[in-house]
């Protein structure tokens, strides 16, 4: 199975990554993808995602292992931005290629829920009065509970 798990430092083209996956697994019947971007918010000038080298990428690699055991995939891409980013820029790309549609879609859904709630990132927003740390959202934990 093709696997590409990366932390990305600068702006990147998510479509390029999806296209590359599609070319690499020509036998996959379906590719499901999700791209999360920095949302527009009048009060927020920038977003920063901090990671811890010894935990963050290893944690995502472990998540990819779990996903690969749970669904039969031909390819899995998880790319997550770190550092300072601005509105409209991609934060995360998850793309799964599989023979069957449901496997690809569920794998992306599961991966996103776990990335959002359960991965080693600390986020802060820059507002007019400086940087503010973002606390975890309750919603993220209820998303996670869906997977039993």
């Amino acid at each position, binding site marked *: 199975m093709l696997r590409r798990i990366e932390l990305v430092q600068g702006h990147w083209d998510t479509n390029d990554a999806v296209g590359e996956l599609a070319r690499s697994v020509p036998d996959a019947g379906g590719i499901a993808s999700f791209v999360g971007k920095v949302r527009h918010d009048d009060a927020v000038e920038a977003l920063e995602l901090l990671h*811890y080298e010894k935990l963050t990428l290893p944690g995502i690699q472990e998540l990819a292992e779990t996903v690969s055991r749970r669904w039969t995939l031909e390819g899995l891409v998880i790319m*997550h931005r770190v550092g300072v980013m601005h509105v409209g820029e991609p934060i995360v790309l998850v793309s799964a290629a599989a023979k069957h549609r449901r496997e690809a879609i569920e794998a992306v859904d599961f991966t996103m829920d776990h*990335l959002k709630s359960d*991965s080693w*990132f*600390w986020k802060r927003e820059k507002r007019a009065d400086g940087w503010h740390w973002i*606390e975890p*959202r309750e919603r993220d934990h209820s998303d996670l509970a869906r997977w039993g």
Partner: protein
Amino acid sequence: MAVKLVFLGKLADLAGADEREVPGPLDWLGLLDQLEAPLAEELRKDRTRIAVNGELVADKAALDAGDGDEVALLPPVSGG
């Protein structure tokens, strides 16, 4: 050689730095001793975790780090 403390997220703000070196060996009470009150208070919270050399410590009270170890202080994640 010493123990390297790594402060993540808002703990780095409270510590005034991303990293700090403290003398080893270091157990739980020794760590709390090394930290200013606001940091120690955050560290005592259940949701604040500790990792030694990238391995999460299940029971913080059982912390046992020596010279050359990297001890990371991890506040709750905000998610990706």
